[in-house]
């Protein structure tokens, strides 16, 4: 196993190194009028956008979008790698920085530099070759149910607080093996603490609970679903969702966010190698950076737009917070270490 694992890492690294050399060779013609064509967009299952946005796209460009959803982000990337010789779509949206390098290493994208890229926050642009274009971002952060915290206890304000015994038995996280926020939070602890291995050992000593996925953490063990734990790994955008979808309506979110604990997930779109409609694919990526699209994103997917010029909806502004200093790790470093980190995490937390 170990040998296999090592060779896997090495192959990954070599592929990453080689990948950079090859990029410029893949020249694809994105010019031409795509009007009247159909462009196929594959996304993860959580993707959603208002009908009016697609109607606007078709009205502007004459291009029709055919949507495909393909499991969660990890499953989607795995599928794209398996089918790279005969991709099911022209554009992929939803690959995030935790999986980005895996996609790049496997050469599933062709570079495309959108003219609208200028308006995007610079720190979101992670691929110099523009094989992927940042579309939106969100922060995976520790959430807490304000009224359910142990009595007389102030809300946690740092990652270290969670190892304090006043929060013993209060924290529930997801396994990074099976959950995307779980992986993001592990990454947050890797850069956000002095010694992440010791940190997790302390969390275990403080009776942290681990679930397989977000749903069974948030609705199983966290207060939101009637559970006994008041602190959970979720998103910075979870509090606005708790307000917007509250029953009965509320003015303030019942949950708070530990802004010190956030890992930034950036979601990208990319033109899939082997596309049959390059011009249409380019038009779609351009469109995804327009305000029409960007301003629809917060309330449909509860993430922040990548474009600086997009205006946020008021209920989002009021209840959503953006972490000032989110943890960010280079995708190549994530890809090179992910399996080793996860294996180590399993040893510390689950064994």
């Amino acid at each position, binding site marked *: 196993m170990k040998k*296999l694992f090592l060779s896997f890492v090495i192959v990954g690294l070599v592929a990453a190194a080689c990948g950079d050399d090859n990029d410029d060779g893949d020249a694809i013609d994105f010019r031409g009028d795509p009007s009247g064509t159909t462009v196929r967009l594959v996304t993860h299952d959580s993707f959603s956008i208002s009908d009016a946005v697609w109607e606007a796209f078709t009205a502007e460009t004459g291009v029709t979008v055919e949507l*495909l959803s393909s499991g969660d982000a990890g499953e989607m990337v*795995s599928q794209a790698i398996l*089918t790279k010789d*005969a991709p099911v*779509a022209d554009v992929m949206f939803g690959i995030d920085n935790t999986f980005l390098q895996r996609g790049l290493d496997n050469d599933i994208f062709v570079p495309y530099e959108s003219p609208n890229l200028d308006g995007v926050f610079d720190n979101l642009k992670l691929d110099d070759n523009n094989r992927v274009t940042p579309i939106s971002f969100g922060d995976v952060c520790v959430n807490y149910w304000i009224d359910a915290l142990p009595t007389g206890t102030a809300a946690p304000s740092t990652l270290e607080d969670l190892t304090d015994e006043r929060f013993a038995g209060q924290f529930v996280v997801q396994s990074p093996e099976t959950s995307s926020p779980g992986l993001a939070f592990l990454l947050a602890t890797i850069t956000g603490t002095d010694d992440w291995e010791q940190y997790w050992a302390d969390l275990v000593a403080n009776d942290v609970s681990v679930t397989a996925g977000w749903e069974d953490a948030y609705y*199983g063990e966290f207060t939101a679903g009637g559970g006994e734990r008041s602190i959970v790994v979720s998103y910075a955008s979870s509090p606005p*969702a708790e307000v917007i979808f509250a029953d009965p309506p509320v003015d303030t979110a019942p949950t708070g966010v530990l802004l010190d604990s956030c890992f930034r997930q950036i979601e990208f779109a990319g033109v899939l190698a082997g596309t049959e409609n390059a011009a249409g694919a380019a038009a779609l990526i351009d469109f995804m950076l327009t305000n029409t699209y960007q301003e629809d994103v917060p309330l449909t997917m509860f993430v922040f737009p990548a474009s600086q010029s997009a205006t946020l909806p008021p209920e989002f502004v009021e209840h959503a917070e953006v972490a000032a200093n989110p943890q960010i790790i280079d995708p190549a470093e994530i890809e090179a270490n992910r399996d080793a980190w996860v294996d180590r995490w399993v040893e510390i937390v689950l064994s």
Partner: protein
Amino acid sequence: MRARKNIGGLDALMLIPAVFIGLFFLFPVGTVVGRGLAGDGLDAVIDLARSQRQRDVLRFTFWQAVVSTVLTVVIALPAAATVAGLSSRARRVVRSIVTVPFVLPTVVVAGAFDELFLATGLDAGAVRLRHTVWAILIAHVFFNYAVVVRVVGTAWVGLDCRQAEAARVLGATRWQAWKEVTLPRLRPAIASASAIVFLFSFTSFGVVLILGGPRRATLETEIYRYAVSRTDLTTAAALAVVQLTTVLGLVAISTWLERRRPATTRVARRTRTLGSRAGRRVNGLVAIALLGGPLAVLVERSFSTGTGYDLSHYEALGTRVRQLPAPATTALWNSLQHAVMATAIALVIGVLASVVVVHGRSSLRRFFDLGLTLPLGTSAVTVGFGILIALDEPPIDFRTRWWIIPVAHALVGVPFVVRTMVPLLRSIDPSIREAAAVLGASPSRVRREIDLAIGARGALVGGGFAFAVSLGEFGATSFLPRRPDDLTAPVALFRLLSTPGDLLRGQAMALAVVLMVLVAVSVFVIESSRGTTEGAL
């Protein structure tokens, strides 16, 4: 029973299930395993065999599946007896209701179990069921109860109860009569049901991860971990080979058990059985505790709002929320259409295959018997990824066709039809067929008038399963790209649950309850369509 030669038209008919299973299962699975094992694949298999962790995983996978199967059979057999003793209408009602768990996503059921564990004190103090092996076992019994009740209950109805009565009169207690006379004659059906339960438990994914907790690993979760989380297709394929080999061996054993000593069925007259009222009550209580508890939690949640109870979550199903590409009602309609199509496919393929399994040439018989059951015991990842990479070139680029979804559902539905129909066909007294032949029926006519008429009972019970399997999105389809327009109810439910907010959660629960009602009513309708055969049996 000896193989019958000269059964007209069978060879041609056989092609249909053969092509189906070949194109949509064997070819894709072969492709994905082949690609994974190309190069140093053999080493990967050897590495697996050497790895202590993987040996533990295999042992645990096997162990939990065996225990789940035994528990399910032990708990559900008395219920099967009770069901067999009911009037045919009551029987159909009960058989429809027990199918409900099949359509519920694990994450929903897990939530209901958690709440139930908390409410009943089973997850507090000394007893903490959550994230234990027991939680896995209880959930497997919950999901598979229907398999035993339906498959065995159906076979039980066909049994001549006078033999058990003869035993009673000869001095056997009720238990002895059951053990000595009824049980041996139910063995084929029990073998069949056990095989299905075993395969479901062997490949169970959500239950292991969510109820068992992230510490438990089975072959199925390991295949997912390597194929998806690590994109290590080689190890995933090696694990898939281990899974396929194990399943193949077990299915071979179970079909052998099923074939041994076929019980002969005469068309039996129903007579009232004595003293079953107490038993009926006990079985009713078990079923209510096991199935009713978690389901009641879901129903309660679906009506519950922040301020009390009303229908608002149900009313909301008709309008599209931003998280969904279509209203939940559209998703229900899509699911229903998929399920109808998957059931139709499963019935056509399953019925043809069953006839071949019982009457065909022996080599083909074995091939169909094993091949058609395999999808039930094969990882959803293997099948899903297989379809994705094998059916990718014109003219067979079927990956994004809408019908590949019901076809993939039918892959799981066909084994149900075969496994419920074959024991019934085998149990037909040869003299009945001979009588029909003597009365002037051609071989194909005999098949239609005798085998299909009597087997229809099993086929429809299997069809009910196929319907439930499809409605619950069982199997490989979560690994296939799909159009949001074809949003199905379980996918919609999952999406509603993936954004915080009580409104969305309430709507998800309402959707789950509608799905439950939909499957119960549909299965009832399917099984009511048997018409004349039920009257005779």
